[in-house]
C-alpha cells in the first residue's frame, strides 16, 4: 500500500466506504419511513445483523487463509449451534456453561472435518464444505426426527434477544447484549489478526502458501484450523440465535451461506486470500441486514425483494468489490476478485 492523501484514502479504503454505505442506507430508510434511523431501530437492525456478522467472521478466517478457501457449511453449522444448545439447555440456566462449551467444541470439531478433507484429501473447499454441510444438516434431521427438543434458557434469551437498558437524562437507551458481545469479539479478533503470531500466520499462508511452508509453518494444519474456527463461530452464532428466537427450528441456518460470503466481499476481503480486515465484513453484514430491513419496510412482495436485493448486491459489487482492474490480466479466476 502506498501512502495516499487523507481525503483520497477515505474513498479508496473499502472499510470506510462500507460504513458510508451503511449510513446512506439508513438515510434512505429514514426518508421512506420516518423513524427508521431512530436510535432504537438502528439497534434492532444491528441486533439482527449480529448473526450474519458472526458467520462472516468464520468466513473471514477461512478466506484470509487462502488457497481458494471458502466455507459454504456455515448455515448448517449455525443450525448445529441452535439444536445442540436447545437440547442441552432445556430451558434451564444451570446448563448454560455446559451448553456453551459443547456448542463451541462441536462446531470446532465439525469444522475441522471440513479442514481435513480440504487440506489432506485435496478436495476443493467449495465442494467439500457444501457436501459436508448437506451431511451435517441431514444428520440433524436424522437425530431429531424433524422435531428438535428443548428451548432457550432465560439467560440465553437475555443475551440473544434482550438489551442493556439505562436512562440517559430522560431518554431510555437500549443496547442489545449481542451488540456488546459483537464489539468485544471484534476487538479481540482485530487484535489477534494484527498483533499475534496466529493472525500473521493466517495472512501468511493466504498470501503465499509455499513461502510460508518454507519458513517452517505447517500450512496444512493451520488451514485446517481456520475451518475449525469457522465452524466454532457459526455454532456460537446459532446458540445466540436460539436466544433470539427462543424455540429451536431446523430451518434457521438455511439461506445464510452465500450472504456471509457476500458480506465479506462487500467489506473488501479478497476471495483470493491473504488480504482484508474483519471490520469490512462487519460493515458488509450490517449493509446486507439493513438492506433486507429496508426491503421489508417498503413492503415489496417476495419477488420484488429478490430482484431488488440482487440488483443492489450487483451494484455494490460493481462499485468497489473488484480490484482496480486495469487490464484483463487481473482477472485470473473466479476466486480472485
Amino acid at each position, binding site marked *: 500500500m502506498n501512502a495516499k492523501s487523507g481525503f483520497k484514502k477515505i474513498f479508496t479504503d473499502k472499510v470506510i466506504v462500507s460504513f458510508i454505505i451503511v449510513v446512506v442506507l439508513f438515510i434512505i430508510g429514514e426518508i421512506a419511513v420516518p423513524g427508521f434511523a431512530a436510535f432504537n431501530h438502528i439497534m434492532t437492525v444491528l441486533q439482527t445483523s449480529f448473526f450474519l456478522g458472526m458467520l462472516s467472521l468464520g468466513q473471514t478466517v477461512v478466506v484470509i487463509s487462502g488457497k481458494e478457501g471458502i466455507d459454504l457449511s456455515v448455515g448448517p453449522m449455525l443450525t448445529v449451534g441452535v439444536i445442540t444448545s436447545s437440547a442441552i439447555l432445556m430451558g434451564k440456566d444451570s446448563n448454560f456453561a455446559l451448553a456453551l462449551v459443547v456448542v463451541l467444541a462441536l462446531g470446532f470439531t465439525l469444522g475441522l472435518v471440513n479442514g481435513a478433507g480440504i487440506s489432506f484429501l485435496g478436495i476443493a473447499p467449495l465442494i467439500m464444505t457444501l457436501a459436508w454441510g448437506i451431511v451435517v444438516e*441431514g444428520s440433524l434431521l436424522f437425530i431429531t426426527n424433524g422435531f428438535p427438543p428443548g428451548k432457550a434458557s432465560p439467560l440465553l434469551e437475555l443475551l440473544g434477544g434482550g438489551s442493556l437498558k439505562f436512562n440517559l437524562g430522560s431518554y431510555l437507551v437500549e443496547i442489545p447484549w449481542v451488540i456488546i458481545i459483537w464489539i468485544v469479539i471484534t476487538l479481540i479478533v482485530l487484535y489477534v489478526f494484527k498483533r499475534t503470531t496466529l493472525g500473521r500466520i493466517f495472512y501468511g499462508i493466504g498470501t503465499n502458501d509455499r513461502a510460508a511452508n518454507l519458513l517452517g509453518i505447517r500450512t496444512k494444519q493451520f488451514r485446517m484450523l481456520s475451518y475449525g474456527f469457522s465452524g466454532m463461530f457459526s455454532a456460537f452464532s446459532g446458540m445466540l440465535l436460539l436466544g433470539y428466537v427462543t424455540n429451536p427450528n431446523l430451518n434457521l441456518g438455511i439461506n445464510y451461506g452465500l450472504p456471509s460470503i457476500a458480506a465479506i466481499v462487500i467489506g473488501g476481503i479478497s476471495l483470493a486470500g491473504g488480504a482484508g480486515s474483519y471490520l469490512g465484513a462487519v460493515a458488509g453484514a450490517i449493509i446486507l441486514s439493513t438492506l433486507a430491513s429496508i426491503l421489508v419496510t417498503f413492503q415489496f412482495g417476495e419477488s420484488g425483494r429478490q430482484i431488488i436485493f440482487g*440488483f443492489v448486491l450487483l451494484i455494490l459489487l460493481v462499485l468497489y468489490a473488484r480490484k482496480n482492474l486495469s487490464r484483463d490480466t487481473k482477472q485470473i479466476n473466479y476466486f480472485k476478485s
Partner: protein
Amino acid sequence: MDRVVKNRTSSFIDLLKNYSKDSSFPAFIVLVLLVAINASLQPTFFSYDSIKSNFMTFTPLILISMAQGIIILSGNLDLSVGAGMSLLTCVMASLLTDSITSVILVVLLGIAVSVALGAFNGVFAGHVGLPPLISTFATNAIFFGLAMTIMPLPGGYVPKFFYRWYRGDILKVIPVPIFILLIGIGVWVIIKRTAVYRYIYAVGGNAEGAYSSGIKVSNVKLMAYVLAGIFAALAGICLLLSTAIGDPRAGLSYTLNSVAAVVIGGISLKGGKGSIGGAIVGAIILGLLINIIFFAQVSSLYQGFARGLIIVISLSLAAIPKLREESRKI
C-alpha cells in the same frame, strides 16, 4: 489436452491405458460400479422402458451439467443456472398455446432468453470482473424474483401433444429425451471444432498467459456463459416437458447438483482441466445415486443426508489419483 491420442497400431489395452490417465477416469469407474448396483437392485434396469424413463429424469441434469462444465472450464462458476431454468419454464409455460407455431416460437424465445441470461452473467464475470461466486448469487436472486413475478405459484399451460412428445420416440427407436441430449452433444461437437473451444481451455488454465498471447479474455468468458446458455435452454425445455408445468422453484436443486456433477466428472474448479464428457458422466452418476436412494426406500427425511454422504464419498474417490500424484512429486 485430455484427448486420447489414437494411434493406428494401438490396441484396445493401450486405449484403456491412455484413458486411465484421463481426468474423468475415476468417475467412469464409479459409473460402472453404480450401473452394476442399479442393475442388481432393479432387474429391468437394462430394459428399453427403464432406460427411457431414467433418461427422462437424467436429461435436464446432464444438459445443465454440460452448461456448468463449460463455465467452470473457463475458470468461472454459475450459481444462477437453477433459477435460470425455473425462469425459463415460467416464461414458456405462460406463453404456450395449442398451435404448433406457438410451440416453435416459444421454444426459440426460450433459447433466446436463456442465452440472454448467460450473456448477463458473462458481462459481469468477464467485462466487469466480479467474482462469479457472488455475482451469480446476485443474478440468481434476480432470476428467481423474475420467475416469481411471472408466476407466483406453479401454473401455466403446456399443450398435451408437446409434453406427450417428450415421452415418445423419434423414428420409433430413439426416445425423445435421448434425442434432445444427442442434439446437445452435437452442439458441443461443433463447438469443439471452433477456436472458442481452445480459448476456453486457455483462459481457464492460465488467464494471464492467454491474455499475453492475444486472446481477449473477457470476451472468451462472456462466450463461455453464452454457449452455456444454449445448453441451459435445452435443459429448461426438458424440465418443462417432464413436469408439464411452469414453476419458479422447479430448477432450484439443479444449481448445486450441476456443480457436484461437474466436480465428480473430474473437471477442476480452478478451470482449464477436464472434459465435458466428464460432466456428462458425473451427471449420470448423480442421477443413478438419486435412483439408488429411491430404490433403497430411504425416507424423504434422510434423502438429503444420504445424498450429501454419497457426494463426499465419490469426491474422496476422485481425490485418490490426485493424492497419488502428490506422493510421486515428493
